[in-house]
């Protein structure tokens, strides 16, 4: 029993009950969604301070809307529920999310939530890399107020997000990109059930003449203490025809924006080399999806 101080397991039915529990337990209250990250921390003995778990599954937050200007995904939407979004299987601009959803095993897809994977602020996950490449932002609510946070500002560092105590992510918004757009995500992993050595998501928009108007290149896995956007690679792509040479050049540029680490999965040099290779593959994949 690694939650040795747990006194209360709340299952609130409205936001006031969340606020009450947070008021009583302060920093020692922890939001519980799918539990797949939290249980991992618990068995490693990292939650010994927690006095209250707040299971938010009765608060709704499970909407899935293909809107005019965006797609909105409730925080409690599981990966499996997200797979049911019809547009995900046809829209080229959303393809990076489809690619990333294929990575986690079935049981995790059934349990893990979109809000949980973002709040965990773990750069080794796959979905956050894809969501950042699609310029995602989250709606956050707490103590009666609401605010929007871009994902780049949500992820502060490894396992640290910018939420205030008691703040809840309620929804993720992915804006529809202009013009002809496509995205792609690729993960390099050691085994079928492991976290990423490196992962890459890209999103590109081109005008009628095929010139790149917008580009987002995002890398995860052990390439920084959070998911990293490669501004250098994006600058190489923007305003150009996406030729073989331009893509090679952009892929080589990602090395300037990442700080690969060494761990039991891979050396830093291997990660650096693979970041380039997988950026190139992801860009080619996105390009092949432009219609």
């Amino acid at each position, binding site marked *: 029993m690694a939650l040795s101080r747990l006194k209360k397991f709340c299952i609130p039915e409205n936001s006031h009950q969340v606020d009450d529990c947070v008021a009583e337990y302060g920093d020692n209250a922890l939001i519980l969604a799918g539990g797949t990250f939290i249980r991992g921390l618990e068995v490693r003995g990292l939650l010994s301070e927690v006095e209250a778990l707040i299971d938010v599954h009765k608060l709704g937050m499970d909407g899935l809307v293909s809107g005019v200007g965006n797609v909105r995904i409730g925080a409690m939407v599981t990966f499996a529920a997200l797979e049911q979004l019809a547009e995900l299987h046809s829209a080229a601009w959303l393809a990076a999310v489809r690619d990333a959803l294929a990575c986690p095993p079935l*049981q995790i897809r059934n349990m893990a939530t979109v809000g949980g994977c973002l709040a965990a602020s773990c750069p080794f996950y796959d979905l956050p890399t894809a969501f950042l490449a699609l310029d995602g932002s989250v709606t956050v609510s707490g103590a009666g107020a609401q605010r929007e946070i871009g994902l780049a500002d949500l992820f502060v560092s490894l396992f640290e997000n910018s939420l205030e105590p008691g703040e809840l992510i309620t929804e993720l918004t992915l804006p529809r990109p202009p013009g002809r757009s496509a995205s792609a995500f690729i993960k390099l992993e050691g085994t079928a059930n492991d976290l990423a050595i490196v992962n890459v998501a890209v999103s590109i928009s081109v005008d009628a003449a095929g010139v790149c108007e917008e580009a987002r290149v995002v890398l995860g896995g052990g390439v920084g203490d959070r998911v990293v956007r490669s501004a250098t690679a994006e600058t190489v792509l923007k305003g150009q025809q996406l030729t073989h040479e331009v893509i090679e050049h952009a892929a080589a540029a990602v090395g300037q924006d990442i700080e690969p680490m060494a761990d039991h999965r891979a050396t830093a040099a291997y990660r650096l080399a693979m970041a380039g290779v997988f950026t190139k593959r992801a860009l080619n994949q996105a390009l092949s999806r432009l219609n």
Partner: protein
Amino acid sequence: MKQLISLEVNGDRHEIAVEPDATLLEVLRDHLGLLGTKQGCDSGGCGCCTVHIGDRAVYSCMKYALSAQHQKITTIEGLGADGKLDAVQDAFVREGAVQCGYCTCGMIMTAKQLLHDDPHPDEDAIRHGIAGNLCRCTGYHKIVEAIRTAARD
């Protein structure tokens, strides 16, 4: 402090007093004596604790028992009827897809959802579908064959 909860497992309702941090896995095995569901890694890495909540396969080691109230839970003991094995269980026996058996119940629960979602999976879909279940004995070949057989019959 223990809390009284109500769980519906294999069609039966149970009132049980549990610690608030008890996992569904602990409750199934230690309180209800349903030992078909196994404990391996206890942290989402092996799959031998797989059960269904509704018609979805989940790791029971990653689910707090309190979060599993008011839902239909099915374990391996809930498959089959009238003393007869379920088709997937039967295929595992006929194909000899079991060695030590530790992974088998979780593997079958995963295969059940796989076949429910895709009644005729090809080999790739089967291997991808059971990626969250480890087997240290069989080398997977016979497990894949058993799932194929269950799909055919």
